[in-house]
Each structure stands twice: as C-alpha cells, then as structure tokens.
C-alpha cells in the first residue's frame, strides 16, 4: 500500500483508484485513502442513527462505523443475502467502512481523462463526487471522501 502511495504521489498527473461498484455504477476512491477492503460481518445496528449508518462492527479490535453507500446515494436496497464488501477508510482519526456491492480492479488514471461533474448530475451525487473519469465504454465517478463526510456531518450538527 505504501509503495503504491508513493507511486501515486510520485507521478504527477496520474492517480491510482480503487474502483468499486455501487448499484451498477462504477466509482473510484483514491488508493491513498483506502486502508483495507473487507467483508462486513456481524454489524451491530445503531438505533436512532442516520439512515445511511449501517451500524458498527469489530474490525481486528477496532470499532468501525459502517456506512451504507447505497443509502447514501439514495439507491434502492440490495436484496437480502446479497454479497456486500466494505472499503475501510480513515477520517479524522476514526475508522469508517463504506459498504459497497463489489470491489473492482485498481486503475491508474491520468488527470487528462477527468472532467468536472456534469451540471445535470443528481445533486445528492454531485455532493460527494469529485469529478468523472471517461473510461472505455463506461464512466467512473470519483468518490471524494472529504466531501462525503463533510456532507454527512453538517446536517447533523444543525440537527
């Protein structure tokens, strides 16, 4: 991971992304932000929490807050017994797990292929998207972790 980090930082105009699929859509997370990928097991529900909080779980002795990205993106629920994966990230010293459908490959993408969010993108998506990469035959939305959490904390502070 660290090695990749250096690579990502070393070459100016390319960034490595861990790609994930949420509700059929391809998303990319900058690899430097991804700590691990795991299968979320025995998740404890947290009553009264925001709907996108799937719960808390024990990941090797650390308590991780799981966020259901489908809920976050206002996508329909995946059915029962559907396979899920989670991407572990750190935000301000706390551990979070983004619950997604599937993890894809790691892509090294040049900034050239990146474009800002299209103006007609669903506002709730635009909120957490750092731009769009044009790939062969599909589009990859960049998940901006900072914005993801920013958007999640602010309404709560107000509440």
């Amino acid at each position: 991971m660290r090695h990749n980090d250096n690579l990502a930082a070393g070459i100016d105009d390319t960034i490595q992304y861990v790609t994930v699929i949420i509700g059929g859509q391809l998303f990319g997370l900058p690899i430097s932000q991804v700590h691990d990928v795991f299968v979320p097991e025995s998740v404890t529900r947290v009553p009264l929490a925001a709907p996108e909080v799937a719960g808390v779980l024990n990941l090797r002795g650390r308590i991780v807050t799981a966020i259901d990205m489908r809920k976050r993106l206002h996508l329909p629920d995946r059915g029962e017994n559907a396979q899920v994966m989670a991407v572990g990230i750190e935000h301000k010293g706390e551990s979070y797990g983004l619950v997604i459908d599937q993890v894809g490959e790691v892509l090294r993408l040049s900034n050239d292929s990146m474009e800002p969010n299209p103006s007609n993108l669903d506002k709730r998506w635009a909120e957490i998207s750092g731009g769009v990469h044009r790939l062969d035959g599909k589009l990859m939305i960049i998940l901006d972790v900072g914005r993801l959490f920013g958007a999640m904390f602010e309404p709560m502070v107000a509440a």
Partner: protein
Amino acid sequence: MDDLLSEFLTETNESLDVVDVELVKFEQEPNNAKILDNIFRLVHTIKGTCGFLGLPRLEALAHAGETLMGKFRDGAKVTPEAVSLILSSIDRIKEILADLEAAGGTEPEGSDDDLISELERMSLAAVAGGAAAQDEPVAEEEGVASGGLVEQVLERPLRPGEVSLDELERAFREAEVEVELPVSAPVSEIEADAEMEAEAAAPPPPRAIRPRVREEEAAPRESAEKGEKKASVSSQSIRVAVETLEHLMTMVSELVLTRNQLLEIVRRHEDSEFKVPLQRLSNVTAELQEGVMKTRMQPIGNAWQKLPRIVRDLSQELDKPIELEMIGAETELDRQVLELIKDPLTHMIRNSADHGLEMPVDRRAAGKPEKGTITLSAYHEGGHIIIEVKDDGRGIDVDRVKAKVLERGLASEAELDKMTDQQIHKFIFHAGFSTAQNVTSVSGRGVGMDVVRNNVELIGGTIDLRSVPGRGSSFIIKIPLTLAIVSALIVEAGGDRFAIPQLSVVELVRVQSNSEHRIERIKDTPVLRLRNKLLPLVHMSQLLGVGPNNGGQEIESDTGFIVVMQVGSQTFGVVVDGVFHTEEIVVKPMSSMLRNLTMFSGNTILGDGAVIMIIDPNGVASAMASHASSVVAEGERKEAEEAMTSALDGQSTVSMLLFRAGSPEPKAVPLSLVTRLEEFEVSKIEHSNGRDLVQYRGALMPLVYIEASQTRRADGTQPMLVFSDAGRSMGLVVDEIVDIVEDRLNIEVGSDRPGILGSAVIKDKATEIIDLGYYLPQAFEDWFMRKEMDISALTKKVLLVDDSAFFRNMLTPVLKAAGYDVTAVTGPHQAFELLENGDAFQAIVSDIEMPEINGFEFCEALRRDPRFRKIPILALSAVVSPASIERGRQAGFDDYVAKFDRPGLIASLKDLFAGEMGIAA
C-alpha cells in the same frame, strides 16, 4: 523545549499551587512559622531555578516576593494587602509560565516593574527600622530586572560550560540566603538545588505526586522527617510521563477485552483444558488492571488546591467572610476524571460563595454565624466517588425558581403546582437558566449549572441537589472512579444487545402478567407498582425505535425484565426483553458521526467479539422526561397522589379491626393496637364505684364505652376489645366486631369529636377511626401518668417526627405511657427548627414515608451534622423489609421498627437508652 525546562514548568506549577493554598492558610494564621517557612522555601526554589535557567523576569519577580516574605519571617506584620500583593505576583508568575510554555521556552516580553516596585515598597515599609541587610538584595535585583546579562543566555540553548556567570550569581544568592535564614530554610531543599546545579542538565530531584501531597498534608511532621524524606522519596518514586501511563492503560484495556473473549470461548466448551490457566490469566489480568488503575489514581485534593485561593478572593471581592471546609481530600480517583471534575467544582464553589451564602448582615439577622461555611467533601461509595458541595446559606428560593420557570415557559403553572420542591429545584440545571443575569435575579443559583451538569454527565456521573430554605443547599455529584473500564449490564431489546452502566442500575425486576410485579397502565403509559411506589416505565425498543413493531405493542405482552435505573433523583424502569450478565467493558468513544445520539455514551467490543452500544442513562432520563412528558406527568401526578395518601398510611396497607359501637356507622382501630378480642358473659360484668368492671385474669378490668348512648347487651355475651399495657387492661365495649380488613388508612376528614381521630374510607364505607389515646385514661386516669411519675428521674426527651396526625396521636400516648417526654412534630422541617433552636432530645423517632424529605434523607441530614451524629434515631415504617432495614442502617438509623409494633418501639427505645447508659457507666 528541552527536558529541563519542561520539568521546571511542571515542578513550578505544582509548587505555585501549593503556595496559593499555603498563603491563604498563612493569612489566617500569620504567626504560624511553619507555613511561612514552607511558602518561603517554595518561592525560593522557584527563584533559584529561574536564575539557573536564565529566566530573568520570573527570577526578579520571585525574588521581590521572597524579599517581602523574608520580612514577614523577621516579624513584620502580615497585612491582607501584602498577601494580596504576593498572590497577584504569583498569578503573574503563572501567566509568564504559561506564555513560556506556549512559546517553547522563551520568556515573554514585558515588565513586572509595577509589581516589583510595589513589593519593594511594602518590604521597605515592613522593615521600617528593621534589618538593614535587606536593602542589598533589592538593589541587586533591580539590576537583574533590567537585565541585559540574561538575554544572551536565552538566545541560545543552555550549555553547561557557558553559564558560569549565572552560576556564580546563583552561588552568591545561595550563600546570601543561607546567611539570611540559616535555621529555617530547609537544608535538604538547598542541597537538592545545589545538586541540581552541579548536574546541570539533570532533572530536578524527582518528586512523585503522591509524596508531594503527603508533604503538604503533613506539614507539621515535615521538619522531623526532612532528613530521611529526601532519601526515601528519591529512591522510591520516579516520575513517569502521563502518556506512558495512558498507553499502559490502553494496553490493559485491550488485555481485558481479549481475556473476556477467551472466557467467552471457554464458556462454550465446558471441559476445556484451558480452563485453569485461563482462570489464572484472568486473575492476573484483574490484578494488573487494578495496579495500572492505581497508578492513575490521585487524591481529589489535587483538584481542590486552587479552591482556598478562589474562596479567599471571592470572600474579599464579595465582602463576605467565608470558610472553606474540605473533607476527604485524600479520596482517590482516576486522574482523567479528576481533570474533568476540576472546572465544575470550581464553578460550584463560586456559585455557593456568590449566591448561596447571604451577606453577613442577613446571616446575623437569620441567627447564623456571620462567617458562611462551604463544605466540600468527598468519599467513596461502591465503585463511585461522591463529592458534595454544601453551603449553610439561604437555600434555594422555590418561589423565585417557579416564577422563572413560568417566565421561561419551561412548565405551566398547573404542572408546577404538582411538583415537589425537589422537582422544582432541578430546574436550575435547565439550560434555560444559564444566563447569568437572569439567574442571579431569580434564585441566586444556576449560573451555568446546566454546564456543570453537562460536564458531570459527560463523565457518566449524576448530580443531585438538596436544599432547605434558610439552611443552605448541597450539591451531590456521583461519578465513577474511572472512565476507562466500567461494569455494565448486558440486556437485549428488539433483537439487539445493549450495555447499561451498572452505575445507574438500581435493581432488576422480572415481570409476568400473573406475578406480583405486573405492568399496569395509566391511560397508555406503562407503570410498575414497586414497593408501593409507581415507577414510570419505558420499553427500550420503543425508546430506541427498534424492534419488530416499533410501537407500544410489545409492552402489552407484559413479560420481560425491568431494569430500574436511577439518574439523579429520577427513578424509572426500562423494559427489556432479556438480561444476560454483567461484564467489565472498555468504553470506546463513538465515531463523531454518531456522537449526536444522546441515547448512547459509547460503544465497546464484547467478549464474543461483537460491537455493542452503551446506553447513556442520562440520555434515557431526559428522553423519558421529554418524550412522553404529558403521559409521564400523569404518572407523576398519580405518584404525587399516592405520596399524599401515603403520607397518612405509610404507603401501605394496615390491618384494621372494624366494629360497631353505639352508632350504626362502622368504626375502626388498627389491629396491632388491640391486645385481645374477648367476649364476656354479661352476667360476669360487675358494677362497682360507678363503673363497669369484669374480672379478667385475676384482676379487675374497667370497661369503657365508646359513646354515652351505648348500652351493653342485656344477656348473652358482650364482645369487647382488650387493650393491655404493663399489667393493666382495659375493655372497650363494642356492639359487634365486623371484620378485619387490610386497607389503606387514609383519614380524609378530621374530627373534632373527642375519641375520634377522623373518618376514612375502609371497604368503601366511611369509617370512624377511634383515638385510643382518649379512651385509655378513662379506664385508669393515670394510664399515661403513673409510669411517668415512677421514672421521672429517668425521663428522656424524645422527638417524634411523623407527618400523619393519626400516628402522632397514636404514638404520643404510647411513648408517654412508657415514660418518655414526647414532642411530636409534623415533619423534618419542624424537627430541624426545634433542633436548631437548641432543644435537646435524647432520641428521635422518625417516620420514613414523608413527603418532601423522607426519613432516610432526614436521618442522613442529621448524621452529617456533627451535633446530631450521636443522637439515637429510630426509624418507624410501615414497610419493613430486609432491604429497607439495610437502607435504614445506611442512612444512620440505630434501629428500624414497624409502625404498629408498639412493644417493639418501646423495647427498641429501651435498648437504645440502656446501651447509652451502659456506655456512660
């Protein structure tokens, strides 16, 4: 910042706190040379170290202060102004130290000439014609203050070889001090300084926190121990960085978790060979945990150090003489908790001084000593520490709180009317009361009390308040000893498990629809009848919005467990589906995304590896209050009603003997008062000396008629109630014994008619309750007199406290009959009044179930007062269970007697006095 400097900062800050305390003490006892020596030595050390480290501003200031104190030692008069001046110099030193720390070792710019010249002026004034030698240091010190020479030292880091000039100066100063004060400057300290200089970069002599505290407390012994102290302290204690301890604690916490996991695994495999070694591991872990915990323990006195100074300043500022009494400073608690409790405590002390205590004029008018007292006490209770801040001021003005509550719209007038004073007091913790200006004009209390409450709750504690108008208020804080590891009850609700901190769990009740504990409803609100009290209930899954039907439905099933919780003075039940076990859990903070959930205080990993949410009792309590405020209010109203009825009947049913005599309406007397029910052949009734008598057990028993119109039967047998006492008996003639019923005795209508206490509804019928005290003397005029005469020399004054007129009327004659001089009052307030007025009683007999202040609280309050610590107090209660007896013992009662157990009461009193006399003899 180099190590030396940071050591210096820590050390000096500690010393300054001590100086603060000592100075305040010194001001009160200006002639105590020991205190002065102590201060002098500390300031001297600070000065010396500053000089050594090249901190000219600090050094100059400390020096000027030291000079003035030197004058005190030489016998100059100690004036409050001088002490104030030294205190403000110390404050300045603290400021400089803070800047120094922030700047990473560079002394801030600025001049202290104002203070220094003032200090010098005072020193000179103090000497007047005194020692001439004092001028020298002043002059020299001025040179330092303007100091070009130290600047250079500051600009580069300390190099031992280059400070020779400083060292030289230090040597001078050292010598000078030794000449000045050869006797009192503690030699060991100077040696320590010298040693330190010699080693240049070596840290100051290690002095662990604990010995330091002992050192302050044991000031008188100090000089004697001085020689050996230095050796023992340096060899037996080391300074350890707080981070090291914190890390250790974290590791131990993890170890506890792992141990729990292992235990869980072994629990599943009954005959595992791991069992024995694991048991050992478990024991060792527990010991390790305790050991590490101990290293984090500090006496609470550390958090109190600043208080005497604050109180002194406030006392001057407000022009009120205030005494601060501190009890239990050695009580230890976790340093993390200690840090967190410091500010709230300071705040509360300020509040008490500012608003709680009256002005001296008012105090005098109220017949109190002019000097107000604030008592700060701490003690351990279970796994918690209780801190109490108490003042003997005016107490909380309920009416003004009410007015404010109304003005702020926090409650309606109707709601307020139904609240007890205690409930009203609690409004001062309400956020709406926090604006200073408003509050001061309201109740004189509550400036930021909501902040205090929040802080206390933040560390899992609770705060409670008791106030008696005119006598003062006390705030009681209950906090866990440590935050890191708590004992929790694991429960299940709505299919999920939750942890409830044991701190707030009072008991567990199992409910089943057919058992004695069942859930009842007032409108739709579930309540539980628990020992004759109504407990508001809430289903946890409802509270948390989890569970299958997410409504009030599951509570209908009426089975499950009720976790009875107490938060402050609020008690309520939380219905859960299952209760597992208790477990030591390591509280881990929730992620910031979940921190807005007031219902949880954190989460943890259980032995089986699952994450579990920890319930925050305070969150639940406030949710109960707001969630269903209307319904709960109804519950409370019912509770209040019950409390009112219970005021009369002691909250429980009483066996009553129903009979008819004279008139057709039923009459009743408590069965326990009746010695025997007898029927006599009418022919056996004799008439002699104008009254009816029967021969009964070899003696003549006079008969008494309830009403003059009553006639005895012409033939057959005549039923009567026999009352016996000390060999004498009386027969109360009745027409018919109707029944014996268990019912609440609730005298609703009082009576003016002699012989009748009043009317109560018993078995749905209005029934007259007869006053035995009226009839007994009719049989023997001297029924109450004779024994009093016999033992008049031994007559003891007994105070009877009972809110129920019935029991006062009933027990007063009983006690009188036993030869006591009885004074009956209607409640603790009146009792306090009498006691305050100096009425002496040899014993107090108190009811338990009373409104406002119950018997337990009354007794606890008495026991807290040194004047009443020894007086025998007897509890009288309708509820006598092992638990209540234990509760009574804890409250400080000497004995616990059932309300109708008349012989028991007399015997118990006799025992008390017998014991007392035994001791006296």
